């Protein structure tokens, strides 16, 4: 594990060629015996140029020179957004360029793709998402990602006078930049927070909570009526961390976000925002306001119970409504809620976590890189964004103006988008640590799982998280640590 991913340039990422390595390995004796033959086989094997897709002359209409009748291999993470949208894109691509577009919709991205990357036979387009995504940082270091700068500079399909880079929402390019180059197209415009049923709210006469105390009061009232206050997707503490981390961010401001992302010595212990936030969250546990059994549920299990009014609130991202489409009653009135505030918070009530989600990449060793680039360009068009809005009821990073007016988003996502609109751009925040430091993320998730199950105290939670931060910092001495 090398340097700080994403933040700075990545030393030693390229350079060492395969053949060079074999020589080195041979010199090292130990490896050479068992792996020599195997390595040389690999060096001569996969990734040969002669099976690459043919190209034609680049034109304004066809900026990557995609030849007709080349096959394209598209791999989609089939999660909360499903994969129907991708099938629509593929059909459209096929219509334009012929050939056959192979579609895979899977959950276990790493399991399916790691071997194929390894032997130099990756798909042409990959939606690298979900809990089993391949780490972009690793892929980048291994030189597996095509530089997508050429995509940014390509003309937009709907208005060739504009470049792709000019139609994307701010922050998208930054988020997909590794080692100074744009490598990943985070396609979905997402937001995270709490969700509730407005129907349930109306029935019990609850008002939208503005402060943490008001939130707790609703939960307490719900408990007295036999409803769980908070459901969370216990098997995946990722979701509960939305609540915890966002509360830390809103209480302590951007400084608190940066402290964690930069592995600060006082990221958790000695950070008053973190200390207050975790105490506040723990109150939910201590007062028995969790939906019974929620700590051990699969995410869709918890969400379905919430859809059945067994709990008032649940944390999730903007894909929630689409994921639960079949389980949600028609009159549920799913509504998004940015986290309520603790007293003296640095951020305002409307502040929320937003970001581009669902990174799409074009592997550099793909057979049809040109086709992959063109596929991404077509995603970033009116047709592409409309298909996505229609099939996944969500917005892409080229914003709502590219979605055909005939498409109606679902009501819940509309409330989330309204909340995003209500928040000025510079008050939106996002954490990066989970992408940069996989083990830190797991450590914090485990601590959260223990806290929610009432097996550790908030103090212990802070200590464990800080210890994990310190451990990560020790491994990455070149971070901007304070």
């Amino acid at each position, binding site marked *: 594990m090398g340097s700080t991913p994403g933040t700075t340039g990545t030393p030693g990422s390229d350079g060492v060629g395969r053949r060079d390595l074999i020589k080195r390995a041979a010199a*090292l004796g130990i490896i050479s015996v068992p792996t020599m033959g195997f390595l040389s086989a690999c060096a001569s094997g996969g990734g040969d140029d002669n099976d690459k897709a043919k190209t034609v002359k680049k034109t304004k209409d066809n900026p990557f020179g995609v030849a007709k009748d080349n096959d394209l291999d598209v791999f989609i993470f089939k999660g909360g957004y499903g994969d129907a949208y991708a099938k629509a894109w593929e059909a459209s691509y096929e219509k334009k360029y012929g050939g056959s577009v192979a579609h895979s919709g899977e959950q276990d991205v790493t399991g399916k793709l790691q071997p194929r990357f390894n032997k130099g036979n990756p798909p042409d387009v990959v939606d690298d998402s979900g809990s089993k995504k391949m*780490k972009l940082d690793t892929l980048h270091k291994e030189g597996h990602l095509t530089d997508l700068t050429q995509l940014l500079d390509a003309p937009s399909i709907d208005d060739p006078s504009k470049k792709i880079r000019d139609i994307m929402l701010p922050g998208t390019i930054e988020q997909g930049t590794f080692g100074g180059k744009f490598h990943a197209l985070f396609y979905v415009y997402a937001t995270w927070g709490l969700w509730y049923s407005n129907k349930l709210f109306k029935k019990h006469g609850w008002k939208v909570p503005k402060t943490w105390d008001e939130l707790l009061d609703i939960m307490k009232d719900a408990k007295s009526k036999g409803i769980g206050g908070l459901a969370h997707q216990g098997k995946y503490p990722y979701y509960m961390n939305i609540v915890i981390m966002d509360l830390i961010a809103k209480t302590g401001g951007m400084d608190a976000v940066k402290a964690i992302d930069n592995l600060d010595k006082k990221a958790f212990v000695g950070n008053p925002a973190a200390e207050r936030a975790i105490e506040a969250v723990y109150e939910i546990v201590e007062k*028995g306001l969790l939906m*019974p059994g929620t700590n*051990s*549920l699969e995410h869709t299990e918890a969400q379905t119970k919430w859809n059945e009014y067994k709990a008032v609130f649940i944390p999730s991202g903007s894909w929630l409504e689409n994921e639960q489409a079949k389980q949600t009653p028609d009159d549920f009135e799913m509504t998004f809620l940015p986290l309520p505030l603790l007293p003296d918070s640095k951020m305002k009530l409307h502040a929320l976590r937003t970001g581009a989600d669902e990174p799409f990449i074009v592997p550099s060793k793909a057979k049809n890189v040109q086709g992959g680039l063109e596929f991404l360009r077509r995603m970033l068009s009116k047709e592409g964004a409309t298909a996505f809005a229609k099939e996944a009821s969500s917005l892409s990073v080229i914003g709502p103006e590219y979605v055909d007016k005939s498409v109606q988003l679902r009501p819940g996502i509309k409330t989330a988008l309204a909340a995003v609109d209500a928040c000025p751009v510079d008050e939106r925040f996002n954490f990066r640590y989970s992408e940069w430091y996989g083990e830190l993320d797991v450590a914090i998730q*485990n601590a959260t799982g223990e806290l929610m199950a009432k097996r550790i105290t908030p103090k212990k939670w802070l200590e464990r998280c800080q210890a994990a931060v310190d451990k990560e910092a020790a491994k990455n001495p070149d971070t901007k640590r304070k």
Partner: protein
Amino acid sequence: MHRKKYPFIAGFLILPVGLYVLLVIWPYLQTISYSFTDWSGASQNFNFVGLDNYKDLASDDVFIKALQHNALLLVLVPTLTILLALFFAFMVNVGGRGGAGGVAGVKGSAFYRVIFFFPQVLSIAILAILFKAVYRGDDSGLINGTLQAVGLGDKSNPTEWLNDPDLVLWCIIFVMVWAGAGFYMVLFSAAMQSIPKDIYEAALLDGAGRFQTFFRVTLPLLWETIQTAWVFLAILSMDAFLLISTLTSQDFGGGPDHSSEVISTYLMRNFQTYSKSGYACAMGVVMLLLTLIVSIVTLRLSRRDRIEF
């Protein structure tokens, strides 16, 4: 015996040994070579890092925890399964209270034989799906739902079977024993039936009691079968991967908070989630050495003189 002996031996060994070396031994050896590198698992580029991975392992708390859990599984799964299977075998063969002519097993022995054996023929994936539903933490889980239906469970504070560090490993062990006991029952009852009766008669004439007979006569004579069962169960318990990774929390399972972590889950997480494949291979090598030791010990301990009937 000397006619063309060596060509024959070579001819018979070449295919099995060749296949075994090519697909089993050779990959294991390569795992060893990877363990000295910082391989990320995503390409064929890596650097030689000497013993670094092994040094890191020595201070990796999670790895040590996982090793302990593996040791626990290795001891408990075979032991519990075999004990239970012996008990069942005893019951269905001779546990019955005989009438005039004497009956071999308890009433319904044939039924028990069929039912107990059945879990073994279910695919292990089915066990995972089934027990995920059985252990569910809220009232829709079979255990909690049943407990609550009969008024034993606390509806507002149900037992989260797979989210309780003290229970989760036992839940996994239970599934493995549940699935295996019936098969070994059949295996042992077969062996019991093949023990000649005069051996018992001799023991009985010497005034041995039921337990004495069992421990002094039955068990030693079953020893070889038990040994086979132990080896097979040990292989099984080393690889609890599918069950643990689907039933428990964390990527590739092992949760909550590493309390059901075993080497296979931790290895896979390092390999895939953390992109620390070289490190994962080092873990594999340590595991390999330990299993080798366990196999040798087992074989030494269990080598007994064969009794020819």
